């Protein structure tokens, strides 16, 4: 049996020429089939990741923009109402009123920023939102809505204070009182014209002209000096 085995081990056959080419083609096809699958999965993973990230960012930005727009609209509406009432009352403020919406808007933005600065917890919560998951995002955004919606009355109060400052009551001082007394005395001593203006008339002045000499056809009818001398 060992002889048979040694014969068997020494036996070789010549392989046909095209066998390696067939094998090479098969290996190439296998390599091509495997590589595109891997590449496709990579691209698909990247695309899904991009879509997910962009979607989450869009959702966050959209919600914050919506909140900002709602706040802005509410503020501008209230300010426009105030502005309209001011325009009706005074015609002189028309030109100023055209400029006021811009100022009002800027004031509203400043007030909104001021409100956000007053509540630092809201800004901190916004920063934390970017680091947490989407579910936590939604919850915190709802909390943020509540926090932002609460201070709106304070904004209106602040707004009213800025637009309509309270007029301080003016009390009469002692010097004013003395000055008034002096004025009353002067009125009683000096006669007043119809317009209330004091006119200091000289005693010699009269309503009629006081000529020194009157001549008619060469004849002197009146001569003041002759009369006084006489």
């Amino acid at each position, binding site marked *: *049996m*060992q*002889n*048979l*085995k040694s*014969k*068997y*081990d020494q*036996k*070789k*056959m*010549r*392989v*046909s020429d095209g*066998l*390696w080419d*067939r*094998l*090479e083609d*098969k*290996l190439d096809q*296998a*390599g091509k089939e495997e590589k595109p699958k891997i590449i496709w999965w990579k691209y698909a993973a990247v695309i899904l990741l991009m879509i997910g990230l962009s979607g989450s960012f869009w959702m966050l930005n959209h919600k914050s923009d919506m909140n900002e727009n709602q706040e802005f609209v509410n503020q501008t509406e209230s300010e426009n109402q105030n502005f309209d009432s001011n325009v009706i009352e005074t015609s002189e403020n028309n030109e100023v009123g055209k400029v006021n919406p811009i100022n009002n808007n800027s004031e509203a933005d400043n007030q909104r920023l001021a409100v956000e600065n007053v509540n630092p917890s809201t800004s901190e919560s916004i920063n934390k939102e970017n680091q947490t998951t989407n579910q936590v995002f939604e919850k915190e955004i709802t909390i943020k809505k509540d926090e932002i919606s609460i201070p709106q009355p304070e904004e209106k109060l602040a707004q009213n204070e800025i637009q309509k400052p309270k007029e301080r009551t003016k009390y009469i001082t002692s010097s004013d009182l003395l000055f008034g007394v002096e004025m009353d005395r002067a009125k009683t001593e000096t006669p007043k014209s119809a317009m209330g203006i004091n006119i200091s008339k000289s005693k010699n002045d009269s309503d009629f002209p006081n000529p020194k000499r009157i001549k008619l056809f060469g004849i002197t009818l009146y001569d003041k000096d002759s009369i006084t001398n006489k």
Partner: protein
Amino acid sequence: MKQDLQQMFSKAKKYDRLAQKSLFELFSGKMLSVANSYINNRDDAEDVLMNAFYKAFTKIDDCRNYESFQFWLRKIVVNDAISFIRTNKHILYAETEFTDSIAEQIDEVDELSKDIDLDVIFREMPIGYKLVFNLSVFEERKHQEIAEILNITEGTSKSQLSKAKKWLKDYFNQQNTIQNAESEI
């Protein structure tokens, strides 16, 4: 030679096409003979050989070192050849018990082994006998392993081997008588 084989093996592990071609050229002749010893058809044997090399090159990481590559590849070729026969030819093994009378015939075949032509065995021997004979004699597999590979009992494997040897003995006796008769004429 060993260094060349080591280099070819290490490059083939990196899917270097030239190294794969070198390994193919080095072992394809021997492996085609092995496959043909089971299938007895050159074209089918080449198909089996190509698939075996394809498996070997695509799963070469499973082979640990270059020294065992030849045996690992041969194992793949044998398994593929047997599975090819199983799918294309129906083989039925009759369950028989191995007896001492059958064992005596094996020693007689050993005496004839010098004159046996391998091509005759591959061409003329019945496929059921040939599978067990090849696995036992050429691949040096134990009957337990053969029984697991062919999904038969160990006794059947032994009886099939003894019958294969008896068939060889009868075949060569018949050939001798024919040659003697032709020489007398």
